[in-house]
């Protein structure tokens, strides 16, 4: 134990994955040309990604669609072979020792099911018991605990295909965790769920991490998942790692910004507005939204909100005005759109 605490449980070094796909031409003639085409395109789904995850951490792995999150997870599980770099998970290279690695990990892919579709979840759990050679006592205790925590009892005997998405996802979590994996990869476990179902799953994930000390890597598009669960986030975009650090740090850097949102009744241009606002302080950013309203971001420590709003109200025919705090969702949106500005 003492030795493993100094070595990170997951270490990705300069990880890269390049896919080669055929550049396909549209249309009927194109479809025929495609049969003989050798016009390949290289897509870098992951490029030079390095990070360490310590045992017991719960890390959010986020990024816009197509950023390379799932590709990374598939490399961590040993299914995909990286075209560059290496992963070491708990002392093993998953690609080289896929079977040994798979006994230590639990995986939930929110968009796929690992339960057997046509039969009740209980049968899938039973398969997992044999699949992972889980000792009877452990199996019973875990199953009992998961049934209670996730409230599975009402639908244990119904075929999986008849379960709602929320019910199914709870069963997916149970199926992935019955063998006490040290490391759990959750790939969008809350996708498509309603708020109540999401919250139940979040509580479960949190307890898993806190009570059992399970290391969890979570990908999600739901910012609330991140806020509720993760102290550390890794953000990737277009295959590149763009941020790795504490969630609190992102908030500290960006969260002190506020915004004034207002509408004007004449044709004030954003350029003229920027010029006039520059007179009252630094660091003001002006944008126009599609609905015609103007957004001015400011740092209240540099320009007090009252000074800014007074300036606006006195100089322009304002029809509506509000001061907003910048929430994490907007911060993340900004990072996705513009990258980290540091």
């Amino acid at each position: 134990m003492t030795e493993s605490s100094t070595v990170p449980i997951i270490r990705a070094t300069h990880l890269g994955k390049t896919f080669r796909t055929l550049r396909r031409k549209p249309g009927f003639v194109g479809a025929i040309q495609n049969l003989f085409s050798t016009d390949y395109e290289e897509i870098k789904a992951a490029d030079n990604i390095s990070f360490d995850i310590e045992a017991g951490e719960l890390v959010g792995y986020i990024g816009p669609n197509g950023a390379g999150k799932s590709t990374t997870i598939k490399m961590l599980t040993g299914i995909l072979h990286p075209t560059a770099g290496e992963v070491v998970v708990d002392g093993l290279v998953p690609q080289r020792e896929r079977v040994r690695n798979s006994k230590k990990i639990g995986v939930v892919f929110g968009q796929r099911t690992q339960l057997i579709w046509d039969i009740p979840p209980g049968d899938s759990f039973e398969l997992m018991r044999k699949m992972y050679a889980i000792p009877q006592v452990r199996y019973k205790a875990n199953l009992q605990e998961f049934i209670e925590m996730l409230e599975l009892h009402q639908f244990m005997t119904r075929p999986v295909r008849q379960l709602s998405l929320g019910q199914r996802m709870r069963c997916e979590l149970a199926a992935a965790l019955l063998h006490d994996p040290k490391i759990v990869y959750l790939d969008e476990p809350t996708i498509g769920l309603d708020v109540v179902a999401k919250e139940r799953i979040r509580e479960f994930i949190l307890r898993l991490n806190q009570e059992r000390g399970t290391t969890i890597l979570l990908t999600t598009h739901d910012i609330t998942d991140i806020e509720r669960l993760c102290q550390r986030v890794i953000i990737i975009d277009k295959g590149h790692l763009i941020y790795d650090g504490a969630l609190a740090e992102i908030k500290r850097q960006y969260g002190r910004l506020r915004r004034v949102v207002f509408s004007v009744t004449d044709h004030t241009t954003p350029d003229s507005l920027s010029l006039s606002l520059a007179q009252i302080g630094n660091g003001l950013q002006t944008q126009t939204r599609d609905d015609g309203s103007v957004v001015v971001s400011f740092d209240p420590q540099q320009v007090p909100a009252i000074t800014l709003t007074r300036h606006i109200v006195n100089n322009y025919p304002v029809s509506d005005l509000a001061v907003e705090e910048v929430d994490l969702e907007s911060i993340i949106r900004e990072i996705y759109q513009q990258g980290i500005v540091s």
Partner: protein
Amino acid sequence: MTGLVEGLQRQIAIAMAAIKQELAYRFEFFTAILGALLMTALLYYLWTAISHNSTSIQMSYQALITYVCLGQAFSFARPGQRRVMMRIGGGIRNGHILIDLIRPTDYQMLTFSDTCGAYLMETLFVSLPSYLLALLVFGISLPASSQAAVGFVVSLFGAFFLIFSVDFMIGLMGFWTFNIWGFGYAKIAILDILGGTIIPLSLFPDWLRSIALALPFQGMAYTPLAIYIGTIQGNSIWLSILNQFAWGVGLVLLTRLIWLRAKRRIEIQGG
């Protein structure tokens, strides 16, 4: 030792899961039996007409009818027998193969156990009822001898072994082409003709028969059927079964090689 026991239990559990899955669609068995019987009837009347109007067929009418009807009852070309191809090919197409690949077991072994379970169900609930109905309705013969009966059953295992390897190989083609239905249909045609399901190889012209006998496909239909009706008898029974298993081992090694290459090519579709 415990590793071996655990491994065996794991594979049995996989087969059991496949059995439960097959049982979930009870109605499918009836439609499969009906389909098998329709094909049997079609071939029965076809061959009856041919043998009544031909003088050059060197097989007795009864043996011929028994051969083709039995061939339909235990056909590996039946749609229900495509589970391996569906599992691999479909899994590659829709990305579900991901789930099989996070399991602590060899992928080829996993698909083998899964197919064993499904094949057992298919045999019990489709092949055997179709066979019994063929005995009653079309009056086909019982095995030529007790040795033929044993040989037939053993050789069915050999045929299963072969067909699994071929299906697995076709499924793996999905790693290069992403869609394997064409291969699937080609396989059925090859099995029906070169395997000797629809026309007994004994009736082929000499040159074609030599080719068919040199290929592994004969082991998937002709071998068990010819043993049953007594065309292959005595020591030849065990020689032809040996031939089946030799091909089986060869094909397993070949599929293993293809699998090791395919594994590196995995690109999971979607997300």
